[in-house]
């Protein structure tokens, strides 16, 4: 690499989960030639077993809750049981006297750490049920919990606001910040709707749902003199380091954050949790390591959610089925805090439409802060948009699939530039083919119906829905590749593997470059001390961001090795390639094994450094996907069973198709839960959640999971980045719920406009269908 010259660092924008972020980007001095679609690759693009599969299934993989340090204490928190109010009395004397108790901290005992809307951590002002009020560290977890029970506390209960029952709302009383509204409009929506011959309007409602990662949130922290070591279940070791250092008022060089294995995050582990800060403060107070792992109830109360949202969609189309207008208005109950992204974005992007208006109203409510959850806002928006699309298709008497076909976008309509590739059409055709989709005919023979007496008892239906997701990844992301004396290699990068398989995928990329078998490459990640910076594991960004950095680092290390081999073989370095564990001189028969070169070099240090270059500026990188669902609705019970999901998604080059497909499976199953079962129940009058456990909060069971057929539209995208990949982590959850809801619509002829599709709601819809003699149910 040449030395840096002027213009090496430029400011650019990077898209993260639909948000544009401004970042300084380091321009690479050299970038490898892109791996195009015809590139012959040995490892990248082929299924390989997860490197940590054996460790995980045998229990040797150590998660944060498995960490045990000598002299470690256990922490437990006192949490407010009320949605709103003030702590009027807080007496910890009795708790402190209990055996085993080493420290009790309240808001008075800790430095002022701004938390919610500038309110300090452990504030006496309560904004949501489950808000931490005090923490205890004791010799055992039991002792800590007993001490929490002994803390004397009294509250003055204030007024609270739960959810959006008062819809439509203008303002929610007593909330810290005024509600804010985002408006985006292109074209003239009012006029377009007026002039559209076919118009539908419908209001859709989705509940707050929870991430329910298998591994609960938690940290083990040891504040040892000038140094804080944090084992954390997190999606972002560097973000936690930065935030924790800031909260504690110490330098980042004194904080080390480690996350070797993470048991799922789905967006709820993006930031430094209050448990991490409090464990650090308890460790400082006691001089001993402190373990603070939340239980499932605490996770349900205080670790984020996908917000409850109401969306009103008006669509207008011409007789030929060409969309004329999309009017999308949403009301979003964030919780006590949260970030603004917007369910309207997918309405502005997914289909070609000149006149689009999206208005999003955000509100604070008295429930834990909202956090990102797998394709945040798009999942909500897709349900409303895609449901309304089917409503309009029916109005127009056009097959829903054909209707979408007529409205495919031809470019990024917001940025007025092309997509690097626009795979929505191919995904649509793939699902159509796999499902044997034929234009809708009432009484289609392939849709079996079951009778009780003379009445229909069970009906079947099918539905589709589509998705778009910004998935290009981007800088900054760094990696080191070190080549050892024995011919093995190590990759170090500060990303995480929260179960997606990034560890394996990155190893495949490095091994590909080095021409080594996979078992001679090891990836170290999730450690701020040994790995260079990489961003959070979020936004479906990891492979597209870190992948190119790892490739570049491996190329850099290889270049150094080849220079050494050139001396050994007496061949110019640019004539050498690494292939199948050997360094080969092109056009000759001369070669030398990889380890012969490294052994020859002895303890010479070869370290390659790689980083992610800037994104293309003239094209938009997005992943598309379409899913089709077949369902069975029991007309007498209202119970919906999903029989089959067909999914076609586009992801550029799939480095490991098996892992990519397992992302599809995971997203679809989570989407199925959103469609049929999941919701946070919260009592309006008392303001407290009612289902803070995996018994009452219903995620899908194995018995609920249908046949899932996945199809990757996998074509390398050299214009996106030089590894040719696009993101795939979040997209598969987006279309599942609307596809299922549209299938139910197809089956019973009436839309259920609120998720989840419970028996009660489906029965009510069936009743409505019968009354109106609509669809199949009106016909005897």
């Amino acid at each position: 690499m040449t030395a840096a010259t002027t213009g090496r660092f430029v400011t650019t924008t990077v898209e993260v989960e639909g948000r544009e972020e401004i970042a300084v980007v380091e321009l690479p001095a050299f970038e490898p030639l892109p791996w195009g679609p015809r590139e012959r690759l040995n490892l990248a693009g082929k299924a390989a077993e997860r490197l940590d599969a054996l460790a995980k299934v045998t229990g040797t993989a150590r998660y944060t809750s498995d960490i045990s340090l000598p002299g470690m204490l256990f922490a437990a928190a006192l949490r407010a049981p009320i949605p709103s109010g003030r702590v009027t009395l807080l007496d910890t004397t009795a708790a402190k006297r209990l055996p085993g108790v080493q420290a009790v901290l309240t808001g008075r005992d800790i430095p002022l750490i701004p938390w919610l809307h500038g309110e300090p951590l452990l504030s006496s002002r309560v904004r949501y049920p489950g808000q931490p009020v005090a923490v205890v560290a004791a010799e055992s977890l039991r002792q800590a919990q007993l001490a929490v029970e002994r803390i004397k506390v009294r509250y003055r209960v204030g007024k609270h606001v739960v959810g959006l029952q008062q819809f439509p709302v203008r303002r929610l009383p007593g909330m810290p910040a005024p509600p804010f509204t985002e408006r985006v409009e292109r074209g003239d929506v009012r006029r377009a709707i007026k002039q559209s011959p076919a118009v539908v309007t419908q209001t859709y409602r989705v509940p707050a749902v929870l991430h329910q990662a298998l591994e609960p949130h938690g940290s083990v922290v040891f504040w040892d003199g000038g140094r804080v070591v944090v084992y954390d279940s997190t999606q972002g070791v560097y973000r936690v380091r930065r935030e924790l250092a800031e909260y504690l008022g110490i330098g980042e060089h004194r904080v080390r954050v480690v996350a070797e294995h993470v048991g799922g995050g789905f967006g709820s582990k993006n930031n430094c949790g209050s448990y991490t800060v409090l464990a650090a403060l308890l460790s400082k107070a006691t001089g001993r390591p402190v373990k603070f792992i939340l239980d499932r109830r605490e996770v349900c109360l205080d670790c984020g959610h996908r917000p409850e949202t109401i969306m009103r969609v008006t669509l207008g189309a011409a007789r030929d089925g060409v969309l004329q207008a999309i009017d999308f208005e949403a009301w979003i109950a964030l919780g006590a805090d949260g970030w603004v992204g917007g369910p309207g974005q997918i309405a502005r992007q997914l289909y070609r439409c000149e006149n689009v208006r999206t208005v999003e109203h955000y509100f604070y409510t008295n429930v834990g802060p909202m956090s990102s959850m797998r394709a945040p806002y798009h999942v909500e928006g897709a349900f409303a948009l895609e449901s309304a699309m089917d409503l309009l298709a029916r109005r127009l008497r056009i097959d829903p699939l054909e209707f979408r076909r007529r409205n495919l976008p031809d470019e990024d309509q917001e940025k007025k530039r092309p997509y690097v590739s626009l795979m929505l059409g191919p995904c649509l055709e793939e699902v159509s083919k796999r499902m044997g989709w034929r234009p809708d005919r009432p009484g289609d023979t392939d849709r079996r119906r079951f009778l009780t007496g003379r009445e229909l008892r069970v009906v079947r239906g099918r539905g589709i829905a589509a998705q778009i997701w910004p998935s290009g990844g981007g800088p900054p992301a760094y990696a080191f590749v070190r080549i050892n004396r024995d011919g093995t290699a190590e990759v170090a990068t500060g990303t995480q593997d929260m179960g997606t398989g990034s560890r394996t995928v990155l190893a495949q990329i490095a091994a590909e470059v080095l021409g080594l078998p996979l078992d001679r490459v090891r990836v170290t990640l999730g450690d701020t001390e040994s790995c260079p910076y990489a961003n959070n594991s979020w936004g479906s960004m990891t492979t597209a961001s870190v992948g190119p950095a790892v490739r570049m680092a491996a190329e850099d290390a290889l270049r150094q090795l080849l220079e050494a081999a050139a001396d050994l073989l007496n061949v110019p370095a640019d004539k050498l390639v690494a292939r199948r564990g050997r360094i080969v001189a092109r056009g000759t028969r001369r070669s030398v094994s990889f380890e012969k070169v490294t052994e020859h070099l002895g303890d010479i240090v070869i370290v390659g450094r790689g980083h992610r270059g800037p994104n293309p500026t003239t094209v938009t990188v997005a992943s598309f996907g379409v899913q089709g669902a077949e369902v069975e609705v029991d007309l007498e019970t209202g119970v919906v069973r999903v029989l089959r999901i067909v999914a076609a998604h586009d992801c550029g080059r799939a480095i490991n198709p098996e892992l990519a497909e397992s992302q599809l499976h995971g997203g679809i199953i989570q989407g199925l839960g959103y469609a049929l079962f999941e919701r946070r129940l919260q009592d309006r009058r008392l303001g407290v959640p009612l289902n803070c456990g995996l018994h009452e909060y219903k995620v899908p069971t194995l018995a609920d999971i249908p046949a899932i057929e996945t199809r990757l539209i996998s074509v390398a995208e050299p214009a996106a980045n030089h590894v040719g990949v696009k993101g795939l982590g979040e997209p598969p959850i987006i279309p599942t719920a609307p596809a299922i809801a549209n299938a139910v619509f197809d089956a019973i002829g009436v839309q259920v406009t609120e998720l989840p599709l419970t028996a009660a709601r489906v029965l009510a819809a069936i009743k409505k269908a019968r009354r109106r003699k609509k669809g199949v149910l009106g016909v005897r």
Partner: protein
Amino acid sequence: MDSLGFHRASSFEEAAGLLHSGAAVLAGGTDLVPLLKDGLVKPSLLVFIGDIPGAASISVTRRGGARIGAAAKLTDIANNPGVRRLFPALAEACRSVGTLQIRNVATLGGNLCQRPRCWYYRSGIACFKSGGESCPARDGLDEALAILGGGPCWAVHPSDPAVALLALDAKITIRRADGSVRETSLADFYCLPSDRLDRETRLDAGEIVERITVPARYAGSPQRYAKVTQRAAWDFALVSAAVVWEKRRFRPRIALGGVAPRPWLLDTARLSDPPVSRRGRDPTAWELWAIRTAEQALRGSRALSSNGYKIELAKNLIRRTLLEWRRV
């Protein structure tokens, strides 16, 4: 909970003797342990009955009916060939409980005595069940609550086997602390909140369920247990129904689950007789009878703000289950 004692009972008599206030019976623990963890019960002593000789026995004969020990595992009942052959409704009800892992440890006695799953009660919110003086669910999210027999508590009874056993007219043998035994019908075992608020059964202090007896009268008769759940597994019934036909008089005994604070037995006297004998009946008349029976069954049901769907669901389920016998 400051300290928790544990005692392994060697007989039901000994167990009953230990059941002073503050003691709880432990068998499979699938309900008790979550209650303990959620702080909803705070016993000082756990009396384990799983080791009592014969406590898990299952004996079934066509002549003698079924005798099932209180500590018999649900999996064992569901898989017992005699139960499956002679009392398929009970086998099906046991099989429909929770998950395989739960059924492998959960016992019949524990299942019959389990506490309600009301969201409010289980969240530790003060209510009649937890010694409070109001029902927060009545004014809150009430879609899971009772449509029959509710008030002042509306929590529904969650057991599946109890519904089947009620339709099968089962008896419960209860051991007392003094060693004596009393037997009661399952119908009398359960009570309504209007009778007793803190518990769902008429078990008194110092009493323990020892055995469940199913009379031979219904052995091998046509019978069915049908359960409607939101999830395909690991879910309590939205509504369930057990239908058991008497052998001689051709009239069904029908019990419902998920609709009332106790397993709900329909008053057979109030139901009309099926149109004709089973042989050669007229399908239309049969269907009309099934519809009428379903209507009669739900007479007196009352919906709260959002649990009305259960009325329709229960009617449909009864009708469907009765109609299935046209094909028998």
